[in-house]
């Protein structure tokens, strides 16, 4: 055998393909006659729900899927209507979207960019999904958002908290309802100041990947602005399970606050380890040592058990909120499934409704028309107060919750209590803020 043989053949073949392509230039370019990808033609419209079903975030993904199913029911006029009754826009009538019955397909992101893109592609190419939504990590959200931009469908992000999703990796076809790392910092800082004073020394442990870095950057900037000193920032490997060797140096570092920029399993383990090392009972400089977890999730708090008690963090939404929208959502979710929804479920439910509403108002499924309807759209009644979908970066601006692990939970769901609802003005930032710089929305792509 000889290898030159292959390259000669390869070259010949390439030439053949090229000439064939030049001879038939039109056949392969146009997908179909319609103006945009997956224009729904029949009496139904298909949405693609892309959530982690295997891997460490599978439970969060399952909760997202429940919320999506509920949203589809409500859009099709089944069930009690949930937030459709409290939503400030009244375009949706419970008769599907633009009169078409809503159907859905599901996929498994496995919380891997590759797998998430594969399942999103299969939903677009095979099932004709007109919109993709879901996900439980920023890496996946950014990867799928990029794909949807190329394919020409709308992406309504699920749980993604990194600044990059609507910062340096923002895309014209992608929209995020969830809050972000900057907002967490901005919301937490004043509360921390009131609780712990303005001359604390903070020690950061940060998950060593993009989300962790933006989280650290944001909370560091916000606390330093209060007058806090940052003693040290240490990156921990994503694969770490035992954080003891990262916690131990904290003991003698002179710091009196530990900030855990971790999420998911990392957060559960690092918090458990920190409490094990007696940090919660420790006193430094005559003051109580404190632990802060900037991004809280009830599902994860459950994994850490009693360790979360008294520990502050921020969250996008919590089921104990008493506004009409939240109450309506918790009622229909709780009645159907028997337990209250998580923040991931809430954001996914709202995203689906917002998308449907935008289509309805635009009168078209064309991604560009939908994007236009979503941009600078102001709404209320979805659980976070008055909310703005900013056109400049496709980020939602709304109130952010500061929560604390509850000391005496009354049930297995009652783990967090809302300490403060930080108003929207306090977490707003300019679209060209340095933490979000470097990106470009580009122009909307209808595909086809």
């Amino acid at each position: 055998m000889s290898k030159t043989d292959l390259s000669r053949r390869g070259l010949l073949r390439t030439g053949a393909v090229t000439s064939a392509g030049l001879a038939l230039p039109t056949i392969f370019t146009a997908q179909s006659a319609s103006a945009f990808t997956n224009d729904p033609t029949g009496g139904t419209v298909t949405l693609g729900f892309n959530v982690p079903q295997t891997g460490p975030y599978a439970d969060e993904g399952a909760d997202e899927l429940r919320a999506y199913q509920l949203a589809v029911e409500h859009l099709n006029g089944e069930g009690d209507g949930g937030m459709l009754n409290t939503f400030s826009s009244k375009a949706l009538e419970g008769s599907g979207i633009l009169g078409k019955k809503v159907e859905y397909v599901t996929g498994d992101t496995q919380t891997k960019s590759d797998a998430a893109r594969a399942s999103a592609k299969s939903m677009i190419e095979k099932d004709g999904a007109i919109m993709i939504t879901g996900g439980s990590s920023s890496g996946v959200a950014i990867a799928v958002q990029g794909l949807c931009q190329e394919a020409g469908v709308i992406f309504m992000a699920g749980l993604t908290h990194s600044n990059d999703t609507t910062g340096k990796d923002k895309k014209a076809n992608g929209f995020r309802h969830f809050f972000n790392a900057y907002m967490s910092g901005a919301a937490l800082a004043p509360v921390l100041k009131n609780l712990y004073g303005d001359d604390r020394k903070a020690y950061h442990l940060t998950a060593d990947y993009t989300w962790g870095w933006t989280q650290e950057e944001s909370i560091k900037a916000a606390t330093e602005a209060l007058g806090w000193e940052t003693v040290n920032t240490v990156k921990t490997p994503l694969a770490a399970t035992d954080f003891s060797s990262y916690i131990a140096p904290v003991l003698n570092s002179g710091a009196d606050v530990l900030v855990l920029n971790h999420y998911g399993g990392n957060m559960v383990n690092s918090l458990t380890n920190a409490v094990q090392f007696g940090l919660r009972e420790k006193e430094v400089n005559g003051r109580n040592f404190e632990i802060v977890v900037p991004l809280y999730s009830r599902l994860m708090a459950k994994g850490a058990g009693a360790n979360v008690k008294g520990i502050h963090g921020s969250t996008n939404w919590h089921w104990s909120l008493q506004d009409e929208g939240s109450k309506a959502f918790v009622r229909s979710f709780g009645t159907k499934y028997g337990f209250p929804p998580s923040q991931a479920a809430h954001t996914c439910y709202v995203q689906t409704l917002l998308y449907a509403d935008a289509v309805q108002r635009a009168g078209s499924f064309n991604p560009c028309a939908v994007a236009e309807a979503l941009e600078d759209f102001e709404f209320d009644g979805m659980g976070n107060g008055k909310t703005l979908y900013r056109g400049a970066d496709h980020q939602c601006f709304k109130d952010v919750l500061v929560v604390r692990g509850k000391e005496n939970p009354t049930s297995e769901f009652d783990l967090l209590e809302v300490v403060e609802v930080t108003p929207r003005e306090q977490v707003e930032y300019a679209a060209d803020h340095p933490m979000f710089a470097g990106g470009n929305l580009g122009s909307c792509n209808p595909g086809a």
Partner: protein
Amino acid sequence: MFGLDKRDTTLLLIVAGLTIFAPFILNPFPTDSGLAQFNAGYPDLMQRFVIFGIFAIGFNILFGLTGYLSFGHAAFLGVGSYSAVWMFKLLSMNVLPAIILSVIIAGLFALVIGYVSLRRSGIYFSILTLAFAQMSFSLAYSVLTPITNGETGLQLTLDDPRVLGQTATADGSIPVTNLFGLEMRGTYEMAMGPWAFQFNMGYYLCALVLIAAFYLSIRIFRSPFGMMLRAVKSNQQRMNYTGLNSKPYTLAAFVISGMYAGLAGGLMASMDPLAGAERMQWTASGEVVLMTILGGAGTLIGPVLGAGFIKYFENIFSKINSNVLHSWFSFLPDGLEDFIVFIIYPFIGKGWHLTLGILFMLVVIYLPGGLVEGGQRIGGWFKGRKKSDARQSETNPAE
């Protein structure tokens, strides 16, 4: 034909036929029937079939012939993807230079890792390759983020230079990958009655590369070089005693299979310009081992079958949800319907890992020769025992 004997030519033609007509073969069910769920003839999955087929063919050249079990082959695939995406970012969106570079870089990478790892054999070799791959993965995920873009994966942006191409298209979006103007994502849809078939440019490029890669692997299997590699597998010591130094042969096999992996990585990035670090994780290396063994290690066609099998599971079974199940069994009375769904549900959708694990164990236990052996056994029942035994010993020479 092409310097192959009759049987190999037939095999090559079968593979060529299967790949070229895949859009028909994989879409046997009408689009609006309930069974359309099982159709796999859409561009992304077809591309994955052939790309992972190439990856597994390459892995088989190392494992099937020499018996060296590498647990780090995904690293080469990852390196290949990263090089290809960098080509798209810096040079142009033409896939040809990207694929060439990814093969070269993966080859160099394989040369270094192979040179070190091949100083040991058996499980020590496996652990060495595993260690190298895990190191690459961990570093790509964290410290090397400037090169790899870490968790998110390396993506194209609107302000990449692309010196030979355009930075952004006129309407302000990122240009798409192409081969001298032929867009990889270009798809021609053909409707025939209730059926719809999709013919995708990128898929056909991958398919042609697969056929070429398959041809090359036949040539390697049948060459004196391949014979030497088999000698390494059956008794390396005896080979050394006859005065032959086996190291250059195994290293060559390692590098070739690394280049196959790089080629697969380059193609993957050409079809979908993103390179994620998870591609290099040890579970990804484990996946190609599973593909090869599942299909039949040491056989020519086995790895391709195994790759198709696993990717089909991952992409089709994971999408069956309880809603779909209920619609299938809706003709049954309510109680029975719920019961059947209850029984099946753990094995599909989010349970696809479980089914894959069970099937995998069954294959290893009952079909050590993989799906190829299964096919031969079924063939044997039809043709009578004697004939099949003769055939098995011929098509299974590496065992």
